[in-house]
């Protein structure tokens, strides 16, 4: 995506949400949806639209882990590290998965196809260790199954 394209998409996303009450979070979601992340150049545009400053927008974006400031992998694997999953051996599983796919937390494969993220509870505590691949929740996962699922989408 060229910078002009990015700007056009950001502008469109902002315009679509303008007029809502408290539009900043919807705008950020729309930008991330349209661009894949919230690029730094969107911040002054958001500041203009919201009649505020880049600092305030930056503060909001950086507060939420789910808003990404840089391009992410095409697919996203999220592994739950919260208490219930830890209780059923998630930590050891995660070590193995990271080893297998060669990614540490927050990293993206060099081909840009996969990003690995930590998440703290997916609401699947009854069937841990839990994970989520893009929009698909996965329960009682093991290293084998995760690797297969990942290979399928890559």
């Amino acid at each position, binding site marked *: 995506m060229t910078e002009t394209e990015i700007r056009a998409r950001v502008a469109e996303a902002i315009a679509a949400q303008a007029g809502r009450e408290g539009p900043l979070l919807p705008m950020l979601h729309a930008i991330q949806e349209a661009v894949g992340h919230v690029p730094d150049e969107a911040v002054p545009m958001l500041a203009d639209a919201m009649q505020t*400053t880049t600092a305030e927008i930056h503060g909001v974006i950086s507060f939420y882990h789910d808003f990404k400031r840089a391009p992410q992998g095409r697919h996203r694997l999220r592994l739950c590290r919260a208490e219930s999953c830890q209780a059923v051996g998630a930590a050891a599983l995660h070590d193995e998965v990271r080893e297998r796919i060669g990614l540490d937390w927050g990293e993206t494969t060099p081909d840009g196809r996969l990003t690995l993220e930590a998440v703290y509870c997916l609401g699947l505590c009854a069937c841990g260790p839990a994970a989520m691949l893009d929009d698909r929740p996965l329960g009682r996962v093991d290293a084998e199954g995760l690797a297969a699922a990942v290979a399928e989408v890559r």
Partner: protein
Amino acid sequence: MRDFIIPDDAYVPASTADMGTPPSRATTTVTLTVDGMPVTVPSGTSVMRAAAEAGIAIPKLCATDSMAAIGSCRLCLVEVEGMRGTPASCTTPVAEGMVVHTESELIRKLRRGVMELYVSDHPRDLLTSPANGLDEVQDMAAAVGLREVRYTPGENHVAPCMANGEANPRFREPDRSNPYFTYDPALCIVCMRCVRACDEIQGTFALTVQGRGFESRIVAGQDQPFLNSDCVSCGACVQACPTGSLLENSVAEIGVPERTVITTCAYCGVGCNFEAQMRGDQVVRMVPWKHGKANHGHSCVKGRFAWGYANHGERILSPMVREKITDPWRETTWEEAITFAADRLKAIQQEHGIDSVGVITSSRCTNEETYLVQKLARAVLRTNNTDTCARVCHSPTGYGLKTTFGTSAGTHDFDSVDFCDVALVIGANPTDAHPVFASRLRKRLREGAKLIVVDPRRIDLLETPHLGEAHHLSIKPGTNVAVLTAMAHVIVTEGLVSTEFIRERCDWDEYLDYAEFLSDPRHSPEATEAATGVPPEALRAAARLYATGGNGAIYYGLGVTEHAQGSTAVMAIANLAMLTGNIGKPGTGVNPLRGQNNVQGSCDMGSFPHELPGYRHITDPVARDIYERAWGVPVPEEPGLRIPNMFDAAVAGAFRGLYCQGEDILQSDPDSSHVAAALSAMDCVIVQDLFLNETATYAHVFLPGSTFLEKDGTFTNAERRINPVRKVMAPKNGYGDWEITQLLANALGAGWSYTHPSQIMDEIAATTPSFAGVSFDLLDAVGSVQWPCNEDAPLGTPMMHGTGFVRGKGKFVHTEYVASDERTGPRFPLLLTTGRILSQYNVGAQTRRTANTVWHDEDLLEIHPHDAEERGIRSGDWVRLASRAGATTLRALVTARVAPGVVYTTFHHPTTQANVVTTDSSDWATNCPEYKVTAVQVMPSNGPSEWQEDYAERAEASRRVLPLEAAE
């Protein structure tokens, strides 16, 4: 048992104790018990502040009394009987009968636990840190009795290296990008005081908290260096920081100050009170005084930081003389310089007559000094040839407001802005020229007040973060009167007039006459659009809002006065206020934003050729009699020459000697070539200044002046407030400016014997009714007073015309728009208007000699993209800016902030000399120059204009100084 009640406004507390949370404005009171002591406070007060009123300091880190509490640090926990848990005292409001315990076993345990966590991520050894002695974390650890920290070593933001020797990824190097302060993240506890100060007090919203939890960091902008962010370097964050994480570099260099002197800033007309914090005779830092009535503890980059010029290497400390202006300067003694000057003035008067000499008083010096200079003219030189730089800025304000209301000054105090519902800002750029007032206005705008801006340029006020309803009438330069009259037309013809107010306070017949004048269709917004460029619907909406939107306050600046119809525009503004009843109550009024620290005072002190102190006309025999008795000499009856008349007379050979104190007329007055010709035609030009300014290029005697830190006196700000100026160090040049004037007067045979400026103020009080009650003792007791201050108002007058106008009935004056002679044509198709920038002040003599130049190191010409493209100009290109008066070159900045057909620049730098271009066109009533409208042409250029080359050569030659030894 004591009973504590928050004192009223008139009281000046000596203490600088932090009360924790801001005062409540409620009028009802509540009584509670804090640690067994009954306390009575206004309802809405926090428990923390109530305790502070009782003398009990509850430990705290994130709370301070300049901003709203957020209850984040959890250190100020208290126990309240009947309330569950341990609430934060900063966010808990008092209630009737409440019983508060600020100390208990439980509270001590909780506070120590909280402090232990803070200290676990805070540098432990502060002995050699610049923050030593200023870090409230240290103080609070001591206050809560913290004795051990169990969480060490561990992850932290403090150590550059981790235990294993690897670099600590959480550690950040200090940000030293700002020239005046450093941000050291290692000392930061993320209490957000800096972020809140930037938001709530300054209104710039440049700082934020990045991330969350243990990752939280204070950053500027999008995690940028402070210098590259929106930060305007006002210093509010530095002042708010409890840990020294944000700290003035001067404290790091010199050490913690040991004493404090309350004084007044010498930059703009806001008149902020400062604490000069000293070590010995060295200023460590200037900190805005929280009890200052104009600034309430806030400041801008100029007053807060740009005071280093006092020690600049170019400051002249020895008097100098020369026979001819082509000679090099010769350093000499005070005695010789004063005798040289006095002899020349005497010789000129003998040969060419009494009125062949004159004085120009300074709007930068104190009231006492200004008074002495005009007294020198009237009582010693025996001429009324005295004028002041207000001639070239707000003389139309004096004329216009005196004619309509009866007083040559603004009507309200700055505090009134807190009550305005609609702010009408005309020809002013407060965020740059009056930044502390702008912050207060922005605060009110964020609270919901509406904004109308009448200006050719899109000023920063319109970019206020979280601004609500705002109207911008982007007018063509020079059409103020047409726009204001059209607004009045709308108000009258749409029946939005406040009939009750006019019947009670104004002359009804005059109103009817004015209303008939206004109702003529030629004043309608539709008819005036061609001249003004303002769409009629926008103008109608703005007029309706001002008339019906609640309390309407007008704030205006030099964009109103510096026009051929400056005085008419001021009267049109006064008419608008009277038509709508927006006068005489808080939140309304007509308020000129005056440019220089003491321009109000210099006008008050009789600097004008036709007025004695207190605006009494020179032909008034009663007023003259008072001075003849006080001075023991006859006072000449004929008004003297105004500054432009002095120049004209000089070129004609009739005016030959000038004593010019603290003003750079060559750079600041219009049509520089004409000024230069006038100065070179004189036999004796005496310049008294800190630096060899541009005027000194044409001077025969240079008397080194003193800074505001080196003398006692008073400045009067835009709200008529007489503020004390205090000597914090001995004058490096040897004398205060008042002493130098006295030396000169005595060499001319005056026999003055003032030993302290307070005696001069006593003389002013004794001879001027509106100052009758003013004395240094009173200022010491109450901090500051607003004139009139006399028997009727012993503590001064915050708001004028409360129940009736000073002149009796408010006067409506017809305001017919007459197009300026400065109009565009084929040769000069663009209109130039001039203005200011935040970091520089006036001709820049002071601010250019400070680190403020990092923000603005040259004047730029703003030009609209359309006009730039037509001429093949890009941002950064050198362009030639030419008018019928002259030409200069500077670099272009292409921006849509200015309308097509309009170009804009500042005049802070002598290399540019924007005033080479401005013309002799001036206000019909007062000769105030039309700086704001000059027809110009702009074209690409390769280098400096002929004037710039000639002048640079001449200035360099003229600044040669032969040292004392070499001359002998």
